[in-house]
């Protein structure tokens, strides 16, 4: 009688754990899918308006960015970037649009010697300690020819600093910008990226392509702070559930083994 009761209890536990596991697995899949879509959005938000054609003369470098908006305030420009909003709930680092043209990929065609094109990127970091925001432009394999001459200049207009000025392919492993604080804050860093060709570039570089990926990251993950939003999703809760399930199962398994050994005796 007692044996049957125990078995029923174990069965109930297994079912409960299985349900928990299924939920955890579903949430994991959800997170992976969310990350996948959220990560692909910044590159494909609005690239259509950024084509340079032969009609356009030198790029408008003088178009200065608007003054920064208050961190944490909802803003019109922020609402125009749905990818930002979707990422904000879970990410401590994301691209934030101050202007409609911010954070869009370069799409420069018909570049000639002496041409330059500038774009702005605004990166927001939520952190509760000192972190270093790192940047790098990775030239994709297969585009080595134009990489021999395509230069870029990375500046932080609000910090009046030139991080790098030279060939894109020769950029250091990371261009670092320190963000120091001792309390929870959201820092914005505005990047001005100018791609240009020197006037001395010769005929051998005609009709060539180059594709590059821009990347920002923070390695001091302990000091990152997920921004608070209305999203109640808590990753750690699911982690706790999964770990708890694991311990319960191990305990259950051990108990069962002991019982089996006792029965055999």
């Amino acid at each position: 009688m007692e044996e049957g009761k125990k078995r029923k209890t174990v069965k109930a536990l297994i079912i409960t754990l299985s349900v928990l596991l299924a939920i955890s697995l579903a949430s994991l899949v959800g997170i992976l899918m969310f990350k996948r879509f959220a990560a692909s959005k910044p590159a494909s938000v609005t690239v259509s308006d950024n084509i340079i054609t032969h009609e356009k003369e030198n790029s408008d470098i003088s178009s200065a960015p608007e003054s920064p908006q208050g961190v944490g305030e909802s803003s019109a420009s922020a609402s125009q970037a749905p990818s930002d909003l979707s990422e904000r709930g879970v990410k401590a680092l994301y691209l934030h649009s101050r202007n409609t043209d911010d954070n869009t990929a370069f799409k420069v065609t018909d570049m000639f010697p002496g041409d330059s094109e500038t774009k702005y990127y605004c990166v927001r970091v939520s952190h509760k300690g000192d972190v270093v925001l790192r940047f790098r432009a990775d030239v994709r394999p297969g585009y080595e020819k134009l990489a021999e001459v395509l230069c870029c200049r990375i500046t932080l207009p609000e910090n009046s600093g030139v991080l790098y000025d030279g060939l894109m392919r020769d950029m250091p492993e990371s261009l670092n910008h320190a963000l120091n604080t001792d309390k929870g804050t959201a820092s914005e860093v505005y990047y001005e990226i100018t791609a240009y060709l020197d006037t001395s570039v010769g005929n051998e570089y005609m009709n060539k392509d180059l594709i590059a990926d821009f990347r920002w990251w923070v390695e001091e993950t302990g000091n990152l702070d997920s921004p608070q939003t209305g999203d109640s999703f808590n990753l750690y809760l699911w982690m706790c559930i999964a770990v708890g399930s694991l311990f319960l199962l191990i305990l259950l398994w051990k108990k069962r083994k002991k019982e089996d050994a006792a029965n055999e005796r």
Partner: protein
Amino acid sequence: MNDNSKTAKKLTGSIIAVVVLALCLCITTFALVWATVSVDNNLFHTGTVKINLNDGKPVIEEHEFLFEPGMTVKKDFFIENESTCDVYYKLYFDNVNGGLADVLQITVKDGDRTLYQGTAAELNRTEVTAADDVLKIKERRELTVYFYFPADAANSTQNLTLTFDLCADAVQTKNNPNKLFV
């Protein structure tokens, strides 16, 4: 015993699943916390400067004319801008050979406007400058070249020949106010 082994199997399976799940969660969490943002597919493409000079055909054929003093030969040809931008262009004579190189007076005209004038020897790559006007994208211009054998040419110019390549150089107008062909 059978039930026990089944339960043990189930439990083992569940434990494996949990371990895998926990690992996946750890990896995801790591990726999530290791916050990285990126803007991919930044494309840079360079333009082209390309000129079509009379489809590569010679403007005057061998043995086409027997020049005599006072004679003028008029030949038409075209130049077309196949570039992805407006260009400056210049026409010049290369690989010039024969005794008539310093005798025949050559004039290249765009309608009534004279672009170049001189002998084949004078109109070489280094001496000629860019034409005054700009050749727009896809623009095709019909030009005329005149070969004039001076009437007062001495007898020593008899039985002489002239061979040459008519060439064109082009360069983009963008960022090139000094019309540099470098």
